[in-house]
Protein backbone atom coordinates (compact mmCIF):
# COMPACT_ATOMS: atom_id res chain seq x y z
CA UNK A 1 0.00 0.00 0.00
CA UNK A 2 1.53 3.38 -0.96
CA UNK A 3 1.86 6.00 1.77
CA UNK A 4 -0.99 8.50 2.06
CA UNK A 5 1.33 11.40 1.35
CA UNK A 6 4.71 11.11 -0.24
CA UNK A 7 6.49 14.41 -0.72
CA UNK A 8 10.02 14.47 -2.08
CA UNK A 9 12.08 17.63 -2.22
CA UNK A 10 9.01 19.86 -2.44
CA UNK A 11 10.12 23.38 -3.24
CA UNK A 12 7.95 26.38 -4.00
CA UNK A 13 9.10 29.80 -5.09
CA UNK A 14 6.75 32.78 -5.40
CA UNK A 15 8.69 35.32 -7.41
CA UNK A 16 11.87 35.89 -5.46
CA UNK A 17 10.59 34.34 -2.26
CA UNK A 18 11.27 30.71 -1.55
CA UNK A 19 8.22 29.72 0.50
CA UNK A 20 9.27 26.10 0.90
CA UNK A 21 12.64 24.46 0.41
CA UNK A 22 13.03 20.75 -0.12
CA UNK A 23 10.24 19.34 2.07
CA UNK A 24 10.43 15.57 2.43
CA UNK A 25 7.45 14.03 4.13
CA UNK A 26 5.93 10.58 4.14
CA UNK A 27 2.64 10.16 6.01
CA UNK A 28 1.86 6.51 6.68
CA UNK A 29 -1.73 5.29 7.07
CA UNK A 30 -3.16 5.93 10.53
CA UNK A 31 -0.53 8.47 11.46
CA UNK A 32 -1.21 12.00 12.68
CA UNK A 33 1.43 14.42 11.43
CA UNK A 34 1.54 18.00 12.63
CA UNK A 35 3.29 20.66 10.61
CA UNK A 36 4.31 23.13 13.27
CA UNK A 37 5.75 26.55 12.68
CA UNK A 38 5.16 30.26 13.11
CA UNK A 39 2.97 32.19 10.67
CA UNK A 40 4.55 32.43 7.25
CA UNK A 41 6.75 29.38 7.83
CA UNK A 42 5.45 27.55 4.75
CA UNK A 43 2.88 25.22 6.35
CA UNK A 44 -0.03 26.33 4.18
CA UNK A 45 2.16 26.12 1.08
CA UNK A 46 3.13 22.57 2.07
CA UNK A 47 -0.53 21.53 2.32
CA UNK A 48 -1.38 23.25 -0.98
CA UNK A 49 1.43 21.36 -2.74
CA UNK A 50 0.44 18.01 -1.21
CA UNK A 51 -3.14 18.51 -2.40
CA UNK A 52 -2.16 19.72 -5.86
CA UNK A 53 -3.68 23.18 -5.23
CA UNK A 54 -0.35 24.62 -6.24
CA UNK A 55 2.36 23.30 -8.53
CA UNK A 56 5.77 22.75 -6.96
CA UNK A 57 8.73 24.65 -8.43
CA UNK A 58 10.75 21.48 -7.81
CA UNK A 59 10.09 18.10 -6.26
CA UNK A 60 6.98 15.95 -6.31
CA UNK A 61 3.99 15.16 -4.15
CA UNK A 62 1.93 11.99 -4.41
CA UNK A 63 -1.41 11.28 -2.72
CA UNK A 64 -2.05 7.58 -2.21
CA UNK A 65 0.62 7.01 -4.83
CA UNK A 66 -1.34 9.08 -7.38
CA UNK A 67 -1.07 12.58 -8.77
CA UNK A 68 -2.82 14.87 -6.22
CA UNK A 69 -5.21 16.05 -8.98
CA UNK A 70 -6.44 12.50 -9.54
CA UNK A 71 -10.09 12.18 -8.56
CA UNK A 72 -9.46 8.76 -7.02
CA UNK A 73 -6.90 10.36 -4.69
CA UNK A 74 -9.13 13.36 -3.95
CA UNK A 75 -12.03 11.05 -3.12
CA UNK A 76 -9.99 9.62 -0.25
CA UNK A 77 -9.17 13.03 1.25
CA UNK A 78 -11.12 15.51 3.33
CA UNK A 79 -9.77 19.03 3.35
CA UNK A 80 -10.06 22.08 5.55
CA UNK A 81 -8.30 25.12 4.14
CA UNK A 82 -7.56 28.43 5.77
CA UNK A 83 -8.35 30.77 2.94
CA UNK A 84 -11.51 29.34 1.51
CA UNK A 85 -15.18 30.13 1.66
CA UNK A 86 -18.53 28.61 0.98
CA UNK A 87 -21.87 30.01 -0.05
CA UNK A 88 -23.79 31.84 2.65
CA UNK A 89 -27.17 31.03 1.11
CA UNK A 90 -27.36 27.33 1.99
CA UNK A 91 -27.88 25.86 5.45
CA UNK A 92 -25.21 23.89 7.25
CA UNK A 93 -27.09 20.67 6.52
CA UNK A 94 -27.52 21.53 2.84
CA UNK A 95 -23.83 22.25 2.34
CA UNK A 96 -22.83 19.11 4.23
CA UNK A 97 -25.19 17.08 2.05
CA UNK A 98 -23.72 18.67 -1.07
CA UNK A 99 -20.19 17.71 -0.05
CA UNK A 100 -21.33 14.22 0.91
CA UNK A 101 -22.39 13.73 -2.72
CA UNK A 102 -18.75 14.24 -3.78
CA UNK A 103 -17.64 11.09 -1.95
CA UNK A 104 -18.28 7.40 -2.66
CA UNK A 105 -19.32 6.35 0.86
CA UNK A 106 -19.97 9.37 3.05
CA UNK A 107 -20.92 9.58 6.72
CA UNK A 108 -24.56 10.32 7.58
CA UNK A 109 -24.97 14.12 7.52
CA UNK A 110 -26.04 14.21 11.17
CA UNK A 111 -22.87 12.40 12.19
CA UNK A 112 -20.61 14.87 10.35
CA UNK A 113 -22.50 17.80 11.84
CA UNK A 114 -22.21 16.27 15.33
CA UNK A 115 -18.46 15.73 14.93
CA UNK A 116 -18.16 19.45 14.25
CA UNK A 117 -20.44 20.27 17.20
CA UNK A 118 -22.87 22.13 14.97
CA UNK A 119 -26.08 20.20 15.82
CA UNK A 120 -27.79 23.31 17.16
CA UNK A 121 -26.97 25.27 14.00
CA UNK A 122 -27.70 22.55 11.42
CA UNK A 123 -30.57 24.49 9.85
CA UNK A 124 -28.94 27.90 9.99
CA UNK A 125 -27.77 29.50 6.77
CA UNK A 126 -23.99 29.49 6.52
CA UNK A 127 -24.08 33.26 6.09
CA UNK A 128 -25.39 33.67 9.63
CA UNK A 129 -22.66 31.64 11.33
CA UNK A 130 -20.05 33.22 13.61
CA UNK A 131 -16.38 32.92 12.72
CA UNK A 132 -15.87 29.93 14.98
CA UNK A 133 -19.03 28.21 13.72
CA UNK A 134 -17.94 28.78 10.15
CA UNK A 135 -14.63 27.13 10.96
CA UNK A 136 -16.57 24.16 12.39
CA UNK A 137 -18.64 23.99 9.22
CA UNK A 138 -15.40 23.60 7.25
CA UNK A 139 -14.42 20.84 9.63
CA UNK A 140 -17.76 19.11 9.00
CA UNK A 141 -17.14 19.41 5.24
CA UNK A 142 -13.70 17.85 5.66
CA UNK A 143 -15.01 14.81 7.55
CA UNK A 144 -18.43 14.30 5.92
CA UNK A 145 -17.09 12.13 3.09
CA UNK A 146 -15.62 9.69 5.62
CA UNK A 147 -12.25 10.00 3.86
CA UNK A 148 -9.19 7.96 4.83
CA UNK A 149 -7.05 11.07 5.07
CA UNK A 150 -7.74 14.50 6.51
CA UNK A 151 -5.80 17.64 5.70
CA UNK A 152 -6.52 20.34 8.22
CA UNK A 153 -4.86 23.71 7.76
CA UNK A 154 -4.94 25.52 11.12
CA UNK A 155 -8.16 23.75 12.13
CA UNK A 156 -8.71 25.62 15.40
CA UNK A 157 -7.81 29.13 14.30
CA UNK A 158 -10.42 31.66 15.41
CA UNK A 159 -12.19 29.26 17.75
CA UNK A 160 -12.95 30.01 21.37
CA UNK A 161 -11.54 27.74 24.05
CA UNK A 162 -14.66 25.61 24.37
CA UNK A 163 -15.09 25.06 20.63
CA UNK A 164 -11.44 24.35 20.20
CA UNK A 165 -11.55 21.64 22.84
CA UNK A 166 -14.50 20.03 21.06
CA UNK A 167 -12.79 20.02 17.69
CA UNK A 168 -9.53 18.67 19.14
CA UNK A 169 -11.62 15.94 20.74
CA UNK A 170 -13.16 15.09 17.37
CA UNK A 171 -9.76 15.00 15.69
CA UNK A 172 -8.51 12.62 18.35
CA UNK A 173 -11.60 10.43 17.93
CA UNK A 174 -11.08 10.32 14.15
CA UNK A 175 -7.43 9.46 14.64
CA UNK A 176 -8.46 6.64 16.96
CA UNK A 177 -10.55 5.14 14.17
CA UNK A 178 -7.45 4.94 12.00
CA UNK A 179 -7.68 8.11 9.90
CA UNK A 180 -4.49 9.54 8.55
CA UNK A 181 -4.29 13.20 9.49
CA UNK A 182 -1.99 15.95 8.34
CA UNK A 183 -2.61 19.20 10.16
CA UNK A 184 -0.85 22.49 10.53
CA UNK A 185 -0.73 24.57 13.66
CA UNK A 186 1.37 27.22 15.29
CA UNK A 187 0.61 25.86 18.73
CA UNK A 188 3.09 23.33 20.07
CA UNK A 189 0.51 22.30 22.65
CA UNK A 190 -1.96 21.37 19.94
CA UNK A 191 0.63 19.41 17.98
CA UNK A 192 1.73 17.67 21.16
CA UNK A 193 -1.83 16.64 22.05
CA UNK A 194 -2.75 15.32 18.63
CA UNK A 195 0.25 14.19 16.67
CA UNK A 196 2.34 11.06 16.51
CA UNK A 197 4.91 13.09 14.72
CA UNK A 198 5.78 16.76 14.58
CA UNK A 199 7.49 18.40 11.63
CA UNK A 200 8.76 21.83 12.63
CA UNK A 201 9.02 24.25 9.73
CA UNK A 202 10.58 27.66 9.83
CA UNK A 203 11.08 29.98 6.87
CA UNK A 204 10.32 27.17 4.45
CA UNK A 205 12.84 24.74 5.91
CA UNK A 206 12.21 21.66 8.06
CA UNK A 207 14.23 22.17 11.24
CA UNK A 208 12.95 19.17 13.18
CA UNK A 209 11.02 16.01 12.40
CA UNK A 210 10.42 13.77 15.40
CA UNK A 211 7.92 12.52 17.95
CA UNK A 212 6.35 15.08 20.29
CA UNK A 213 8.42 13.62 23.15
CA UNK A 214 11.68 14.12 21.26
CA UNK A 215 10.71 17.60 20.16
CA UNK A 216 9.85 18.58 23.70
CA UNK A 217 13.14 17.20 25.03
CA UNK A 218 14.93 19.45 22.57
CA UNK A 219 13.24 22.59 23.65
CA UNK A 220 13.91 24.28 26.98
CA UNK A 221 11.28 23.57 29.58
CA UNK A 222 12.31 25.97 32.37
CA UNK A 223 12.62 29.70 32.59
CA UNK A 224 15.27 31.12 34.92
CA UNK A 225 15.08 34.71 35.99
CA UNK A 226 17.32 36.56 38.49
CA UNK A 227 19.05 39.82 39.38
CA UNK A 228 22.86 39.49 39.32
CA UNK A 229 24.84 41.25 42.09
CA UNK A 230 28.02 40.89 40.07
CA UNK A 231 28.73 41.95 36.53
CA UNK A 232 27.57 39.36 34.00
CA UNK A 233 27.84 39.21 30.21
CA UNK A 234 27.32 36.69 27.44
CA UNK A 235 30.68 35.12 28.31
CA UNK A 236 29.42 34.26 31.80
CA UNK A 237 27.07 31.71 30.20
CA UNK A 238 29.53 30.27 27.71
CA UNK A 239 29.15 26.52 27.28
CA UNK A 240 25.98 26.31 29.39
CA UNK A 241 22.70 24.76 28.13
CA UNK A 242 20.83 28.06 27.89
CA UNK A 243 18.65 29.62 25.24
CA UNK A 244 16.98 32.95 24.70
CA UNK A 245 19.45 34.64 26.99
CA UNK A 246 18.49 38.22 27.72
CA UNK A 247 20.49 40.52 29.94
CA UNK A 248 18.77 43.85 30.44
CA UNK A 249 17.81 46.28 33.18
CA UNK A 250 19.95 44.42 35.73
CA UNK A 251 17.96 41.28 35.18
CA UNK A 252 18.82 38.04 33.45
CA UNK A 253 16.20 35.93 31.65
CA UNK A 254 17.00 32.62 30.06
CA UNK A 255 15.45 29.29 29.09
CA UNK A 256 17.01 25.95 29.83
CA UNK A 257 16.28 22.26 29.94
CA UNK A 258 18.76 21.73 32.75
CA UNK A 259 18.27 24.54 35.25
CA UNK A 260 20.24 22.71 37.96
CA UNK A 261 23.32 22.47 35.74
CA UNK A 262 23.08 26.12 34.82
CA UNK A 263 22.71 27.34 38.39
CA UNK A 264 25.49 25.09 39.66
CA UNK A 265 27.84 26.47 36.99
CA UNK A 266 26.87 30.06 37.76
CA UNK A 267 27.65 29.58 41.45
CA UNK A 268 31.01 28.03 40.53
CA UNK A 269 31.71 30.99 38.25
CA UNK A 270 31.20 33.29 41.23
CA UNK A 271 27.94 34.89 40.09
CA UNK A 272 25.88 36.20 43.01
CA UNK A 273 22.13 35.84 42.40
CA UNK A 274 19.22 37.77 43.91
CA UNK A 275 15.47 37.28 43.38
CA UNK A 276 15.98 33.91 41.72
CA UNK A 277 12.92 32.42 40.03
CA UNK A 278 12.78 29.08 38.23
CA UNK A 279 9.43 28.51 36.50
CA UNK A 280 8.06 26.24 33.82
CA UNK A 281 8.63 27.82 30.44
CA UNK A 282 5.67 28.75 28.36
CA UNK A 283 5.54 26.08 25.65
CA UNK A 284 4.98 28.62 22.91
CA UNK A 285 7.88 30.73 24.05
CA UNK A 286 10.06 27.64 24.19
CA UNK A 287 8.98 26.58 20.75
CA UNK A 288 9.78 30.01 19.38
CA UNK A 289 13.27 29.59 20.73
CA UNK A 290 13.61 26.45 18.65
CA UNK A 291 12.64 28.24 15.46
CA UNK A 292 14.70 31.34 16.22
CA UNK A 293 17.79 29.26 16.75
CA UNK A 294 17.57 27.73 13.29
Amino acid at each position, binding site marked *: MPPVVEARGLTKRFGDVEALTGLDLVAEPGQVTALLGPNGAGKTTSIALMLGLRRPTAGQALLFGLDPDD*RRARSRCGVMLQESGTTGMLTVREIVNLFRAYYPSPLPAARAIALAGLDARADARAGTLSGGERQRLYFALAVCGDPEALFLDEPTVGMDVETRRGVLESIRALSATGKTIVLTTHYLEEADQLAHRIVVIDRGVVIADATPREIKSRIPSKRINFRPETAVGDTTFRGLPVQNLEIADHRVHLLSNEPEVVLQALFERGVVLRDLEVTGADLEEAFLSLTRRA
Partner: protein
Amino acid sequence: MTTPAAAPLLKMLLAQTRSELLIRWRVPAFSVTNLVLPIVFFIFFGLPIAHLRSGDGVSIGAYLLASFGAYAVGNVMVYGFGIGVANERGMKIDRLMRASPLPPFVFMLAKVVTALLFALLALVLLIGFGIVAGGIREPPAVWATIITRLLAGSLPFIALGFAIGYWSGPNAAPAVANLVYLPLSFASGLFVPLSQLPDFVQRLAPYLPSYHYAQLAWSALGAGHESLGESLLWLGGYSALFLTLAVRFYRREERAKFA
Protein backbone atom coordinates in the same frame (compact mmCIF):
# COMPACT_ATOMS: atom_id res chain seq x y z
CA MET B 1 -14.99 -5.05 0.80
CA THR B 2 -15.10 -3.16 -2.45
CA THR B 3 -16.09 0.46 -2.28
CA PRO B 4 -16.18 2.50 -5.47
CA ALA B 5 -13.09 4.67 -5.92
CA ALA B 6 -15.11 7.82 -6.50
CA ALA B 7 -18.68 9.05 -6.31
CA PRO B 8 -20.73 8.77 -9.54
CA LEU B 9 -20.56 11.95 -11.61
CA LEU B 10 -24.30 12.06 -12.20
CA LYS B 11 -24.94 12.04 -8.46
CA MET B 12 -22.49 14.92 -8.06
CA LEU B 13 -24.10 16.85 -10.91
CA LEU B 14 -27.59 16.45 -9.43
CA ALA B 15 -26.50 17.54 -5.95
CA GLN B 16 -24.53 20.46 -7.35
CA THR B 17 -27.40 21.58 -9.58
CA ARG B 18 -29.86 21.34 -6.70
CA SER B 19 -27.61 23.59 -4.59
CA GLU B 20 -27.12 26.08 -7.39
CA LEU B 21 -30.90 26.26 -7.92
CA LEU B 22 -31.49 26.87 -4.21
CA ILE B 23 -28.83 29.58 -4.10
CA ARG B 24 -30.22 31.34 -7.17
CA TRP B 25 -33.71 31.12 -5.82
CA ARG B 26 -32.68 32.56 -2.45
CA VAL B 27 -30.70 35.49 -3.82
CA PRO B 28 -33.31 38.09 -4.82
CA ALA B 29 -30.69 39.86 -6.95
CA PHE B 30 -30.85 36.80 -9.18
CA SER B 31 -34.39 35.52 -8.85
CA VAL B 32 -36.11 38.91 -9.11
CA THR B 33 -33.98 40.34 -11.91
CA ASN B 34 -34.09 37.05 -13.80
CA LEU B 35 -37.79 36.32 -13.54
CA VAL B 36 -39.57 39.59 -12.84
CA LEU B 37 -37.60 42.26 -14.69
CA PRO B 38 -38.39 41.01 -18.23
CA ILE B 39 -42.11 41.00 -17.36
CA VAL B 40 -41.90 44.53 -15.93
CA PHE B 41 -40.17 45.75 -19.11
CA PHE B 42 -42.81 44.01 -21.19
CA ILE B 43 -45.56 45.74 -19.24
CA PHE B 44 -44.05 49.16 -20.08
CA PHE B 45 -42.82 48.61 -23.62
CA GLY B 46 -44.98 45.78 -24.91
CA LEU B 47 -48.39 45.59 -23.31
CA PRO B 48 -49.72 48.96 -24.58
CA ILE B 49 -49.15 47.95 -28.22
CA ALA B 50 -49.58 44.17 -27.87
CA HIS B 51 -52.86 44.12 -29.80
CA LEU B 52 -51.37 45.74 -32.94
CA ARG B 53 -50.22 43.97 -36.07
CA SER B 54 -47.42 44.97 -38.40
CA GLY B 55 -47.94 45.67 -42.07
CA ASP B 56 -47.16 42.06 -42.99
CA GLY B 57 -49.54 40.72 -40.38
CA VAL B 58 -47.13 39.79 -37.57
CA SER B 59 -48.54 40.27 -34.07
CA ILE B 60 -46.58 43.09 -32.41
CA GLY B 61 -47.32 41.49 -29.04
CA ALA B 62 -45.79 38.18 -30.10
CA TYR B 63 -42.85 39.99 -31.71
CA LEU B 64 -42.14 41.87 -28.46
CA LEU B 65 -42.56 38.71 -26.37
CA ALA B 66 -39.88 37.14 -28.58
CA SER B 67 -37.68 40.23 -28.10
CA PHE B 68 -38.09 40.30 -24.34
CA GLY B 69 -37.64 36.53 -24.26
CA ALA B 70 -34.25 36.98 -25.92
CA TYR B 71 -33.46 39.73 -23.42
CA ALA B 72 -34.58 37.50 -20.51
CA VAL B 73 -32.39 34.51 -21.42
CA GLY B 74 -29.31 36.66 -22.06
CA ASN B 75 -30.05 38.39 -18.76
CA VAL B 76 -30.07 35.09 -16.85
CA MET B 77 -26.76 34.11 -18.46
CA VAL B 78 -24.83 37.38 -18.32
CA TYR B 79 -25.91 38.28 -14.77
CA GLY B 80 -25.95 34.76 -13.40
CA PHE B 81 -22.46 33.89 -14.55
CA GLY B 82 -20.99 37.38 -14.46
CA ILE B 83 -22.02 38.26 -10.91
CA GLY B 84 -22.17 34.67 -9.64
CA VAL B 85 -18.65 33.74 -10.69
CA ALA B 86 -17.18 37.06 -9.54
CA ASN B 87 -18.86 36.63 -6.13
CA GLU B 88 -17.60 33.11 -5.70
CA ARG B 89 -14.11 34.22 -6.58
CA GLY B 90 -14.41 37.00 -4.01
CA MET B 91 -15.53 34.52 -1.34
CA LYS B 92 -12.78 32.09 -2.31
CA ILE B 93 -15.27 29.31 -2.83
CA ASP B 94 -13.10 28.09 -5.69
CA ARG B 95 -10.25 27.06 -3.39
CA LEU B 96 -12.29 24.55 -1.41
CA MET B 97 -13.91 23.31 -4.62
CA ARG B 98 -10.50 22.76 -6.13
CA ALA B 99 -9.45 20.59 -3.21
CA SER B 100 -12.66 18.53 -3.26
CA PRO B 101 -13.26 15.47 -5.45
CA LEU B 102 -15.76 17.45 -7.54
CA PRO B 103 -14.37 17.73 -11.09
CA PRO B 104 -14.33 21.37 -12.30
CA PHE B 105 -16.38 20.50 -15.39
CA VAL B 106 -19.21 19.14 -13.21
CA PHE B 107 -19.09 22.37 -11.19
CA MET B 108 -19.40 24.38 -14.44
CA LEU B 109 -21.99 22.09 -15.96
CA ALA B 110 -24.21 22.39 -12.87
CA LYS B 111 -24.10 26.18 -13.28
CA VAL B 112 -25.07 25.91 -16.94
CA VAL B 113 -27.93 23.48 -16.24
CA THR B 114 -29.18 25.75 -13.45
CA ALA B 115 -29.03 28.81 -15.68
CA LEU B 116 -30.90 26.98 -18.46
CA LEU B 117 -33.63 25.93 -16.02
CA PHE B 118 -33.93 29.51 -14.77
CA ALA B 119 -34.01 30.80 -18.33
CA LEU B 120 -36.76 28.31 -19.15
CA LEU B 121 -38.74 29.46 -16.13
CA ALA B 122 -38.21 33.11 -17.10
CA LEU B 123 -39.52 32.40 -20.65
CA VAL B 124 -42.53 30.44 -19.43
CA LEU B 125 -43.48 33.21 -16.99
CA LEU B 126 -42.97 35.94 -19.58
CA ILE B 127 -44.87 34.22 -22.39
CA GLY B 128 -47.56 33.07 -19.96
CA PHE B 129 -47.96 36.65 -18.81
CA GLY B 130 -48.19 37.85 -22.42
CA ILE B 131 -50.88 35.29 -23.21
CA VAL B 132 -52.94 35.98 -20.09
CA ALA B 133 -52.52 39.74 -19.71
CA GLY B 134 -51.99 40.74 -23.33
CA GLY B 135 -54.27 38.25 -25.04
CA ILE B 136 -51.43 37.37 -27.42
CA ARG B 137 -52.23 34.23 -29.39
CA GLU B 138 -49.80 32.04 -31.34
CA PRO B 139 -49.89 28.28 -31.97
CA PRO B 140 -48.18 26.36 -29.10
CA ALA B 141 -45.62 25.01 -31.60
CA VAL B 142 -44.44 28.59 -32.27
CA TRP B 143 -43.90 29.26 -28.57
CA ALA B 144 -42.12 25.92 -28.24
CA THR B 145 -39.84 26.83 -31.16
CA ILE B 146 -39.03 30.23 -29.65
CA ILE B 147 -38.24 28.71 -26.26
CA THR B 148 -36.13 25.90 -27.70
CA ARG B 149 -34.15 28.19 -29.98
CA LEU B 150 -33.49 30.78 -27.31
CA LEU B 151 -32.25 28.17 -24.84
CA ALA B 152 -30.14 26.35 -27.42
CA GLY B 153 -28.64 29.55 -28.82
CA SER B 154 -27.62 31.06 -25.47
CA LEU B 155 -23.98 29.92 -25.58
CA PRO B 156 -22.51 33.35 -26.48
CA PHE B 157 -24.16 34.87 -23.40
CA ILE B 158 -22.98 32.04 -21.14
CA ALA B 159 -19.47 32.71 -22.40
CA LEU B 160 -19.90 36.48 -22.01
CA GLY B 161 -21.07 35.92 -18.42
CA PHE B 162 -18.05 33.76 -17.62
CA ALA B 163 -15.74 36.34 -19.20
CA ILE B 164 -17.22 39.12 -17.02
CA GLY B 165 -17.16 36.88 -13.95
CA TYR B 166 -13.49 36.05 -14.34
CA TRP B 167 -12.49 39.53 -15.42
CA SER B 168 -14.13 41.75 -12.79
CA GLY B 169 -14.16 41.70 -9.02
CA PRO B 170 -17.30 40.98 -6.99
CA ASN B 171 -18.05 44.68 -6.49
CA ALA B 172 -17.55 45.70 -10.10
CA ALA B 173 -19.35 42.75 -11.70
CA PRO B 174 -22.96 44.07 -11.42
CA ALA B 175 -21.91 47.39 -12.94
CA VAL B 176 -19.93 45.72 -15.72
CA ALA B 177 -22.80 43.33 -16.50
CA ASN B 178 -25.26 46.25 -16.67
CA LEU B 179 -22.98 48.44 -18.76
CA VAL B 180 -22.41 45.65 -21.23
CA TYR B 181 -25.78 43.96 -21.39
CA LEU B 182 -28.33 46.80 -21.23
CA PRO B 183 -26.90 48.89 -24.11
CA LEU B 184 -26.35 45.70 -26.08
CA SER B 185 -30.01 44.73 -25.67
CA PHE B 186 -31.29 48.20 -26.41
CA ALA B 187 -29.16 48.68 -29.51
CA SER B 188 -30.22 45.28 -30.83
CA GLY B 189 -33.87 46.29 -30.78
CA LEU B 190 -34.95 44.07 -27.89
CA PHE B 191 -36.80 46.82 -25.98
CA VAL B 192 -38.01 48.98 -28.82
CA PRO B 193 -38.26 47.62 -32.37
CA LEU B 194 -35.25 48.59 -34.47
CA SER B 195 -37.34 50.56 -36.97
CA GLN B 196 -38.06 53.09 -34.22
CA LEU B 197 -34.44 53.53 -33.14
CA PRO B 198 -32.05 56.23 -34.42
CA ASP B 199 -30.41 55.63 -37.75
CA PHE B 200 -26.90 54.94 -36.43
CA VAL B 201 -28.25 52.32 -34.03
CA GLN B 202 -30.05 50.63 -36.91
CA ARG B 203 -26.76 50.44 -38.78
CA LEU B 204 -24.86 49.20 -35.72
CA ALA B 205 -27.36 46.51 -34.70
CA PRO B 206 -26.47 43.90 -37.39
CA TYR B 207 -23.02 43.59 -35.81
CA LEU B 208 -24.26 42.85 -32.29
CA PRO B 209 -24.73 39.37 -30.79
CA SER B 210 -28.14 40.13 -29.24
CA TYR B 211 -29.47 41.20 -32.65
CA HIS B 212 -28.62 37.85 -34.21
CA TYR B 213 -29.78 36.01 -31.12
CA ALA B 214 -33.22 37.65 -31.25
CA GLN B 215 -33.48 36.66 -34.93
CA LEU B 216 -33.76 33.05 -33.72
CA ALA B 217 -37.03 34.00 -32.01
CA TRP B 218 -38.28 36.58 -34.52
CA SER B 219 -37.86 34.22 -37.45
CA ALA B 220 -40.06 31.67 -35.64
CA LEU B 221 -42.84 34.29 -36.11
CA GLY B 222 -41.88 34.92 -39.72
CA ALA B 223 -40.45 38.29 -38.74
CA GLY B 224 -36.72 37.61 -39.02
CA HIS B 225 -34.32 39.71 -41.05
CA GLU B 226 -31.90 36.92 -41.95
CA SER B 227 -31.72 33.17 -42.47
CA LEU B 228 -31.30 30.82 -39.52
CA GLY B 229 -27.89 29.78 -40.85
CA GLU B 230 -26.73 33.38 -40.92
CA SER B 231 -27.84 33.93 -37.32
CA LEU B 232 -26.10 30.77 -36.15
CA LEU B 233 -22.89 31.75 -37.92
CA TRP B 234 -22.82 35.11 -36.12
CA LEU B 235 -23.66 33.51 -32.79
CA GLY B 236 -20.94 30.90 -33.32
CA GLY B 237 -18.42 33.64 -33.99
CA TYR B 238 -19.41 35.58 -30.89
CA SER B 239 -19.33 32.38 -28.82
CA ALA B 240 -15.76 31.77 -29.97
CA LEU B 241 -14.78 35.36 -29.16
CA PHE B 242 -16.35 35.39 -25.67
CA LEU B 243 -15.09 31.90 -24.86
CA THR B 244 -11.58 32.97 -25.80
CA LEU B 245 -11.88 35.94 -23.46
CA ALA B 246 -13.38 33.80 -20.69
CA VAL B 247 -10.60 31.22 -20.97
CA ARG B 248 -7.99 33.95 -21.02
CA PHE B 249 -9.29 35.59 -17.82
CA TYR B 250 -9.79 32.17 -16.23
CA ARG B 251 -6.16 31.26 -16.95
CA ARG B 252 -4.95 34.56 -15.53
CA GLU B 253 -6.84 33.75 -12.33
CA GLU B 254 -5.49 30.20 -12.30
CA ARG B 255 -1.92 31.45 -12.55
CA ALA B 256 -2.41 33.85 -9.67
CA LYS B 257 -4.24 31.46 -7.37
CA PHE B 258 -3.13 27.96 -8.20
CA ALA B 259 0.20 28.16 -10.03
